[in-house]
């Protein structure tokens, strides 16, 4: 486990999350700097999305504290965390179905980033453009296919002007060409100094962006560090391939 860096923008200590008797997160400690790009991998059910939900404020942890930009945000709802610059996307896209793609993104620019009308227009158009969605800007989100819905998730989160972006499997189901575009988009965000936490199953895509890799299994962080080293970790290999009967 890495020592907690002093300049951490986001840190979580002793995070537990239980749903009834089910323990989904079991004593997670995690910290990252503002300029980091952290990948999270792990088998299904490891607790990755739950961790993202707890970090973003979708629901509170059962125990533990979360600090963002130097302040304790454990009790803050998602709305407030978003306004502070901690923004997530959803694994299963949650578009505003009855609104156009532009309107989806405009809501984030106007409320999440707190921009005036004209600034919000510009920010929303910029985000749509970056995600290659200007062409469908006037389509109602419920008429978009899965690929565009995932792009819309990213564009909408971006329009809220995050300092730290939590991405949940935005690359699932992409062709190689599409994945290449996505990597380019994420690299552009890195150039804009946006910190990234990215959960992804397609490891070779993730590793084109992530400088640090975390592997989770059964609610715990089992490896954390330089990506190649994490991928070679025997515990990680056993989590993915099964360690045989115990």
């Amino acid at each position, binding site marked *: 486990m890495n020592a907690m860096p002093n300049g951490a923008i986001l840190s979580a200590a002793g995070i537990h999350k239980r749903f009834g008797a089910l323990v989904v997160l079991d004593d997670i400690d995690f910290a990252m700097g503002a300029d980091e790009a952290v990948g999270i991998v792990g088998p299904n059910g490891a607790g990755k999305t739950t961790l993202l939900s707890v970090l*973003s404020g*979708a629901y509170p942890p059962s125990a533990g504290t979360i600090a963002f930009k130097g302040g304790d945000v454990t009790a803050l*709802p*998602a*709305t407030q965390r*978003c*306004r502070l610059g901690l*923004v*997530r996307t*959803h694994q299963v896209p*949650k*578009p*505003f*179905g*009855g*609104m*156009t793609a*532009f*309107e*989806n993104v*405009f*809501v*984030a620019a*106007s*409320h*999440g*980033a*707190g921009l005036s*009308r004209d600034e*919000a*227009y*510009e920010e929303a*158009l910029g985000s*749509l*453009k*970056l*995600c*290659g969605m*200007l*062409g*469908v*800007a*006037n*389509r109602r*989100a419920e008429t978009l296919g899965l690929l*565009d819905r995932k792009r819309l998730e990213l564009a*909408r*989160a971006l*329009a*809220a002007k995050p300092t730290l972006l939590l991405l949940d499997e935005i690359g699932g189901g992409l062709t190689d060409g599409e994945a290449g*575009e996505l990597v380019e*988009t994420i690299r552009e965000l890195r150039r804009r100094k946006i910190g990234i936490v990215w959960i992804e199953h397609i490891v070779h895509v993730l590793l084109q962006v992530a400088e640090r890799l975390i592997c989770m299994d059964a609610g715990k962080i089992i490896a954390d560090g330089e990506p190649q080293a994490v991928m070679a970790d025997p515990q990680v290999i056993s989590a993915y391939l099964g360690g045989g009967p115990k």
Partner: protein
Amino acid sequence: MSAASPTIERGTAASRIAGVGVLAIILLLAVSPQFLSAGAVDRMTTLFIYVILAAMWNALAGFGGLVSVGQQVFFGLGAYFAIRLANAGLNPFVSLFVSAVIVGAVSWPISLFMLRLKNGEFAIGMWVIAALTHLLVNLDRLIQGETGTSLISLNVYDASTRRLTIYWLALASMTALLAILFGLLRGSTGAAIRAIRDNEDAAASVGVRVTGTKRLLFVLAAFGIGVAGALWLATSITFQPKTYFNVQWTAYMIFMVLVGGIGTFEGAILGALLFFLIETWFGGTGVWYLIGLGATALVFSLLLPRGLWGTLEERFGWRLLSVGYRVKLPPGPSNPTGEIASPLQTTNSREKA
């Protein structure tokens, strides 16, 4: 950004004409008592009240996703507080509006616990609130249980003064409430309201204040329906709790909004007009009128689920009182008209990205 950037369009040429048209209609309505019979003036007052009811329920359910079957609580309270205020010596016409303000104030604490409920729970919970409030109002000695009472102090005005004053008050209330609603829904709060309707979690995740925004809409709708209830009292003079706290009022609101087109500003107004016409033509046929209403609702929900205006809007792209946003791309070689949305172009723009 350069001059060739996309621009945002709020209205079309048609919507600007529609705006002028709406103004003209309101001016025409303001002078029309000169030409209308006393009965027609009363009927028009009823229409204005229906428009208020439909617009408020549509804002709440169609834009905010807050489907309530208990909005009659605010209709009844609007009338009840007006009776109480007039009884305390306040001018009856002033009472109507002070009453609506009180209804808005009362709706705020109600929202504190009702807005925690979701979907069906909220819908039915509001009905429970309405039934409870009905019972509480019955306990008031002044109301004498279901016997009811009257807005006696209106009788100091002669019939025609009363009729005209109520007509203009109803017209002014309708105009003001529609203007407030349109302004709210067209602004960035309106975008937040629609976002909450479509996905509350996602709205929170992009910085929308979910509860506060819902509360604002809930209180505004309560106030508007309170105005409608108070105006109804002024037209009918008598107050019997079971008439005002009757769920039929919400049923009418739902009918108007579903037939007109839920979630469109124009739809609610059109629906109120349709309901008014059906009532005017067939209201005398007793039970057949109700069967007809039910059948109409059934046909619409099966064949035109988006309502009349929603269907027209989709088929012909009509947007008259639109609260939405349209992106207009700058004209270019691949895009001579500045219009977008062909799937083919989408693919192209993706490849370029």
